[in-house]
């Protein structure tokens, strides 16, 4: 693990040495900014509701996830393979897993940074609520944890897609499909099988259910373990895929 800090620094600087990092942040801020404005407008035009602006915003996590995560993960390994720089990297005294881990961490940091910018929304809410409503910071913090925990798993899926091909577009579409299956389709299934055993299984692993809990301030150990295991498996397969040059 000695080389992870150096590799991570390189990954982060790569995002901001190209336009990619800035475009991703811009895209995210436009989408979330508009959503936030609409949500606040909607909530303030009606009477008291059970929802808070931040909970609605957290529940919107799938929208940037579907677009941003494929965009930031597609190049990670596919580009290194296509440009041949993987050969430079893998003939230095670093292990395959160190490289995979650093690439995943780099994307997670960017993703966290992206969501970190929405802290300003909380400040805006606090400022303009003018003391009429007390802003409960606990559930908001839990919501951020939820968004990060789900996001890091989806990033691992994106990295896995990137390790399977040299073609960045193919990698992006593959991770889009995987994220779509894991987030949207699972949610549909839980509606489809409502009531039955299948339904409760689907609900137990549905990201929408989890984010709802997190948004209400419930930091449950079960989703944490679920996504932790998911990430570990995805990173393991990714490492194997990088190593596959050795047994192909």
């Amino acid at each position, binding site marked *: 693990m000695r080389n992870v800090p*150096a590799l991570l620094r*390189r990954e982060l*600087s790569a995002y901001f040495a190209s336009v990619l990092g800035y475009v991703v942040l811009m895209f995210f801020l436009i989408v979330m900014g508009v959503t936030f404005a609409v949500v606040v407008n909607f909530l303030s035009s009606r009477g008291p509701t059970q929802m808070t602006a931040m909970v609605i915003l957290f529940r919107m996590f799938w929208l940037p996830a579907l677009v941003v995560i494929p965009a930031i993960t597609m190049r990670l390994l596919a580009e290194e393979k296509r440009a*041949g720089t993987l*050969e*430079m990297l893998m*003939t*230095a005294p670093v292990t395959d897993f160190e490289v995979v881990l650093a690439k995943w961490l780099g994307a997670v940091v960017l993703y966290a940074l992206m969501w970190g910018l929405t802290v300003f929304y909380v400040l805006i809410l606090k400022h303009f609520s003018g003391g009429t409503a007390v802003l409960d910071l606990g559930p908001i913090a839990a919501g951020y944890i939820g968004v990060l925990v789900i996001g890091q798993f989806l990033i691992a899926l994106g990295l896995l897609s990137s390790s399977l091909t040299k073609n960045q577009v193919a990698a992006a579409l593959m991770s889009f499909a995987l994220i779509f299956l894991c987030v949207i389709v699972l949610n549909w299934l839980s509606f489809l099988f409502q009531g039955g055993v299948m339904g409760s299984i689907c609900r137990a692993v549905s990201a929408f259910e989890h984010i709802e809990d997190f948004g209400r301030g419930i930091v449950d150990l079960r989703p944490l373990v679920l996504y932790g295991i998911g990430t570990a498996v995805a990173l393991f397969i990714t490492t194997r895929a990088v190593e596959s040059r050795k047994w192909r």
Partner: protein
Amino acid sequence: MQPMIKVENLTKRYAGVTALNGLSFEVQRGEIVGFLGPNGAGKSTTMRILTGFIPASSGRVTVAGCDVFEESLEVRRHVGYMPENNPLYTDMRVYEYLKFRAKLKGLSRADRHERTDEVLAMCGLTDVRTRIIGQLSKGYRQRVGLADALLAEPDLLILDEPTIGLDPVQIRQVRQLIKDLGKQHTILLSTHILPEVEMTCDRVIIIHHGRILASDTPENLTKTLQAGGAIRVEVRGPVADVEAKLRAVEGVASVRTTPGADGFVSVEISPKTDADPREPIYRTCVANGWTLRELTRTRTTLEDIFVQITREEDEADEERRERRRSMLR
């Protein structure tokens, strides 16, 4: 002392294709060895195995006494490698990239600084150290690759086609750099450009279809084949007489004459093996009173050897295949 590289019976098969077929060779410490072969001969594959990027199908490879498969990380610490086409992170600045690589190669913080500056100076990159690699010319990029290979002061430098795509001036600079480096490092470089090997290497390994065809110093290879090198003579004299008398000279195997328009006869003489009949030829000309305008031995270049050896190999292959075909019929 153990050799720097020891390759025993190395075989590499990709799905359905045999890239390397029982390769064995050694490289001693301090040698500059040129790996010569046409495209697809197996040069890059061998280098990738030596650097631990891909494993062999069978055979044993040790670098500095470490097995490349069992102790891959240790081997990588001993090797500075510049892959084919010299892939670099084009979005980084030159010194940034070298610092990053130095860190990966495990140099301490203090060494990192010093070594980066050293290799920058060594490779003539000091002026472009703050430029973005993607904006550099190919020659400069090649030097960045070399600088990277040199960073950790490796015992062994493996350079895959270090001068490909450079202009003549740059090629000369890179060759000179390699020659200078050869004073302190063991170098294995691959190329399909022959003058390069003649100029820079102590020893040449010719490889074709994944097999070693020849391994010797460039001079020896030239000498062995020069024994059959032709002698060109131009004399003024009667054609039939010239042919008959030169054929009689000791050490001459065959003579072919072509009368020229200006009264001179050009003669192509093949000497017998190991014979150099140039002096008797001269004496024969003088004794007969012929004017001698030219007497040269055509120097066999490495290029001729290379073409000859690979062609013989291909013909032998073709023959085997033909025989197999006729047997099936």
